[in-house]
């Protein structure tokens, strides 16, 4: 699997990942590793997640796909350490993972640039480097001129790009995304798919992307993981080797989407039977 490493411009994250890989041997390389993770809320409540085993490799793009009630968001919260698993372990290779929400969750009392600087500050970046770093991140999401903009002055797509820049300002090399484009219009969403693919390739982050949109998953991911609902379990996985950048309406993406959708519907149908 050594040849799977990106031949991209070497970023700090990628270097760290390479070092880790060399140290531990290739088969061991992971960015996130979940072993037998279960979660139930309340005492004796029905499990939301049941025995999840999932390893995300450094620099890998994984989409978690599932219907309502499959615990996708719960799983991200567990990885982000916003909640504790009821059983099982979660290992993270580096730092605190960044998490992007469906709602941009930018702080409206700070300008766009200052939102990013806050993330840098909390990460411990010295004051005199923050501005330059924030501007670099804004340029990465093609919002060079947005530094002094108030959050409410930005469009929905621009807000999500600032939110992405803020997430990238965090040190961890894992980026968790909880349906980040679900609230956007189709045109903007397509563009952001292209942007995310580019940024992922440029930064070498490991991405765990949660969605209920099959085409979106196939458009973006190297690996799609289908979760069953109530309790959430891993039902199936697909590895996708369609070259990037993919187009969401391309025949390849459509064909696989149809296959995955059939499985997803099968999972949903099971719940109607009892």
């Amino acid at each position, binding site marked *: 699997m050594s040849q799977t490493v990106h031949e991209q411009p070497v970023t700090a994250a990628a270097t760290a990942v390479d070092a880790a890989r060399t140290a531990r041997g290739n088969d061991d390389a992971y960015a996130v590793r979940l072993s037998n993770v279960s979660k139930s809320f309340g005492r004796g409540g029905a499990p939301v997640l049941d025995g999840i085993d999932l390893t995300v490799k450094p620099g890998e793009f994984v989409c978690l796909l599932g219907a309502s009630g499959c615990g996708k968001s719960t799983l991200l919260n567990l990885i982000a350490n916003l909640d504790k698993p009821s059983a099982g372990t979660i290992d993270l290779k580096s730092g605190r993972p960044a998490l992007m929400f469906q709602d941009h969750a930018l*702080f*409206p*009392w700070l300008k766009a640039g200052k939102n990013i600087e806050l993330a840098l500050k909390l990460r411990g970046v010295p004051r005199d480097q923050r501005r330059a770093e924030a501007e670099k991140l804004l340029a990465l999401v093609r919002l060079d001129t947005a530094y002094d903009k108030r959050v409410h002055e930005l*469009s929905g797509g621009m807000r999500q790009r600032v939110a992405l820049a*803020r997430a990238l300002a965090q040190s961890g090399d894992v980026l968790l995304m909880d349906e980040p484009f679900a609230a956007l219009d189709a045109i903007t969403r397509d563009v952001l798919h292209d942007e995310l693919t*580019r940024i992922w390739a440029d930064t070498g982050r490991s991405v765990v992307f949660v969605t209920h949109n099959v085409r979106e998953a196939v458009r973006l991911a190297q690996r799609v993981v289908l979760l069953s609902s109530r309790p959430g379990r891993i039902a199936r996985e697909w*590895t996708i080797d*369609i070259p990037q950048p993919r187009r969401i309406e391309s025949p390849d993406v459509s064909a696989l989407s149809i296959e995955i959708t059939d499985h997803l519907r099968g999972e949903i149908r099971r719940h109607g039977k009892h």
Partner: protein
Amino acid sequence: MASTDLTKPAEAEDHAPGAREDVAGLEAGLDALETYESERTPIWRTLVSKVLPPALAIAFLLLVWQIAYWAEIKPDYALPRPLDVWDAFMKTWREGETLDILWVSLERAAIGFVMAIAIATPLGLVVARVKWIRAAIGPLLSGLQSLPSVAWVPPAVIWFGLNNSAIYAVVLLGAVPSIAQGIISGVDQVPPLFIRAGRVLGATGLLGVWHVLLPASLPGYLAGLKQGWAFTWRSLMAAELIAASPDLGYGLGQYLNQGRDLGDMPMMLSAVFMILIVGIGIDLLLFSPLEKLVLRQRGLLVNK
């Protein structure tokens, strides 16, 4: 389509250079289409829409008052003309006392208000965030808010004597609950998403309070401060009016009280108006602009 070869990452990087520019251009177009410049209203329109109506209302009230005087509804020692009240005000002004009187009261109000903020802010935060403390003293705080602070004057005078301590005690008992209540409702209104987003960024514990909770609850906090100021001013006037003593200096309350002792209605009314004008003035000059600024920054103030 499924394959066992795990990763063929980053073909993205070697796609045609033109593709990236395409996306960039598309994105720039979308951004331009979806942003709107908001224009500011010209000053003269603000004057006409904001200043003129209250000015007219005041003029109308003065007219009604003058007519009531002409109609001799009350004898003129009880209901003087507006002009008599103006004369009483100008008399004090010419004696050079007005600013001193105002200063005595304003200084006390400022000190009391700052003390109230210093006590109420941590108190409100703790009550808002710690469940059992909230259960214990939350109802007490909202109950205290409905207790007229003038009720505290007699006990305060007995506990502290006729001095500034008694006055500050009354002011604090009046203002602290409403400021604390303001920050509590401000914190309650903070969207949980902000707290979670802050935690993801590493703002936990006190860092979370400083970087997320406090700024996010600022609008509610400001509303609390505004109300807290009103309570400060009210409590102070009640205290000054009841606890009159030569040791206490000569503030607006004492000025009003002296008017009562002299049976001088124009003087009393001029005191009442000064109290009113200071209360409204601080609100208009300090709290309203501050509140508007905060709301505008957050896009919560819609220009109609």
